[in-house]
């Protein structure tokens, strides 16, 4: 492009070339396979994690998500394939030379060391002086909102506190990528939800420098925290996308069923998925073109919402969620056995692709 009497610009210039490729993905896996004897844990996996994002690997146990994490960390060598961190190949690099740190599921705190020594461990093996170690460790503990426990042993802390120490121990080293292996799995529900928000806040604070790669089997956790989610099943990647994409446009029945509740229906020879909350129960006497007629088979009053199971004329069992805005438990429970019509907007019906059928064939 020529501007005025000036020069032709081919490429952006004037910026010093970075030591590593800043546009490269934080993590890139290419054709990674890992098996344990006859058991294939991950099969031909290719995936990219963008710098600074909160990336979640979601799947049931045995789906390969933890193995993938361990391959990125360097604990497990990949049988085949390539692992890159910020454009640098690390496929054969031992864990202690990779710019990543891990928060373990069991926290893996050193029981014979104080909290301070635990957090400062990474700095200590790097040769950082004692005073600076203590300062940075204290700063990291303050960041995870756990100041003043430096002198205690891990055994003297509660589960939630240990979790925070494990997090501080990892982030104090300023890794490029932080790997978290179901870090909230051992906490009770309330604490877990609290920590989800805190983790997300910490990630936002650090996202300029640190990319979070998070493993969980909890779909709510994945939806709450992630920028993007990768859904795993049987050692394969089923779908990668934002929480919205995964929830609203699942590519196949597995993703639709694993993340949230879904109704998979056959329409015009294609399989479509509709979320229960997108379906409207028409008022008695109300009708709409294309409405589905059915009979209410089950009603479950869940407080803020009511869950209906409607059997359609075609014999499909359709789950419908309705908010209890102007109704009562007494009234909804009387709706069992009633004839109803169901309606949903065409754009809320997501067509599932043919991958599932190919896999079954």
């Amino acid at each position, binding site marked *: 492009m020529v501007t005025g009497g000036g020069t032709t610009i081919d490429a952006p210039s004037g910026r010093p070339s970075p030591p590593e490729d800043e546009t490269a993905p934080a993590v890139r896996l290419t054709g990674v396979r890992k098996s344990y004897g006859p058991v294939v844990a991950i099969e031909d996996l290719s995936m990219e994690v963008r710098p600074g994002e909160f990336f979640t690997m979601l799947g049931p146990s045995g789906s390969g998500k933890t193995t993938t994490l361990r391959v990125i960390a360097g604990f497990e060598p990949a049988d085949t394939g390539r692992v890159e961190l910020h454009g640098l190949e690390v496929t054969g690099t031992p864990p202690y030379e990779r710019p990543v740190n891990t928060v373990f599921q069991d926290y893996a705190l050193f*029981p*014979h060391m104080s909290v301070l020594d635990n957090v400062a461990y990474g700095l200590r*093996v790097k040769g950082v002086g004692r005073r600076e170690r203590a300062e940075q460790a204290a700063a990291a503990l303050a960041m995870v909102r756990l100041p003043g426990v430096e002198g205690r042993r891990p055994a003297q802390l509660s589960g939630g506190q240990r979790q925070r120490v494990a997090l501080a121990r990892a982030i104090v080293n300023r890794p490029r990528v932080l790997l978290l292996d179901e870090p909230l799995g051992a906490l009770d529900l309330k604490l877990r939800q609290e920590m989800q928000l805190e983790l997300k806040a910490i990630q936002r604070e650090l996202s300029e420098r640190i990319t979070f790669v998070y493993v969980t089997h909890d779909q709510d956790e994945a939806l709450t925290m992630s920028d993007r989610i990768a859904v795993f099943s049987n050692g394969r990647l089923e779908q990668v996308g934002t929480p919205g994409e995964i929830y609203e446009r699942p590519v196949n029945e597995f993703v639709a069923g694993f993340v949230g509740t879904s109704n998979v229906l056959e329409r015009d020879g294609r399989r479509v998925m509709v979320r229960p909350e997108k379906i409207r129960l028409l008022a008695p006497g109300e009708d709409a073109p294309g409405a589905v007629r059915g009979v209410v088979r089950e009603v479950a009053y869940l407080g803020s919402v009511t869950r209906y199971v409607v059997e359609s004329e075609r014999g499909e069992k359709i789950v419908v969620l309705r908010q209890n805005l102007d109704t009562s438990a007494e009234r909804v429970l009387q709706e069992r056995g009633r004839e109803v019509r169901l309606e949903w907007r065409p754009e809320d019906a997501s067509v599932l692709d043919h991958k599932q059928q190919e896999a079954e064939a």
Partner: protein
Amino acid sequence: MTGSSRASRIALGVFTALLMLFLFFPIVIIMLYAFNPSNIQSWPLPGLSTRWFSPTWHNAEMRHALWLSVRAGLFSTAIAMVLGSMAAFAVHRFRFFGREAISFLIVLPIALPGIITGMALNSFISFGGVEFGLLTIIVGHATFCIVTVYNNVLARLRRTPSSLVEASMDLGADGLTTFRYVTLPMIATALVAGGLLAFALSFDEIVVTTFTAGAQSTLPIWIFGNIRLGQQLPQVNVVVLFVILLSLIPVALAQRLTRDTGVLRQAAAPAAAVP
């Protein structure tokens, strides 16, 4: 209800007391005999005296036997600590051909009757033309000392989550640094406890020693020989008194060390921030 449970508690208490009495009464008696002024063992003691302590201490034969036992114990314990912990690491960390067989063979000497180990070693050493003495005693003792170290260290390794080593590597420590800062401190108490037990085993061993010592006498052999001859019984009693007192130390230490996984003094809460 409470009456019957109280009665059974009393019965259990009495039974336990009798059992303890049966176990420890003879030991108390033998300890008292060390203070017997007479050289004839008779009951009740004619008085209490320490007149045999000095001649025992100056008995050259006894001293030689004691020194031999100490050296045999220290060397076989050292060998056991090195080989036993190495074997424990290998069996714990790697999957290799013959792993189960090796594990079984290491533990076997403790189950095998000492007389068989002794006979086998004796014929093997004679066959090899090696002179019987300190070296052969150490080799004989090491066979069963390795087991105690091996078992202790292996048990500790199995109780130590593998994620600790991974966490250390993840935080930038290579294999050697990880061993120094994480693995060794984790197994240290088990290693020492195993070593103390090994020394205790070696120090009072008599069956295997009989077959491997040749003309040498370790302390247990010296005691055994003198009880049979009966001439130096008062001195034997004094030696026994001190052996009992000394052997309490390692056993108590070993128990204390293996009681938990190194997190001692939980109650001694928030210590100063920086050590």
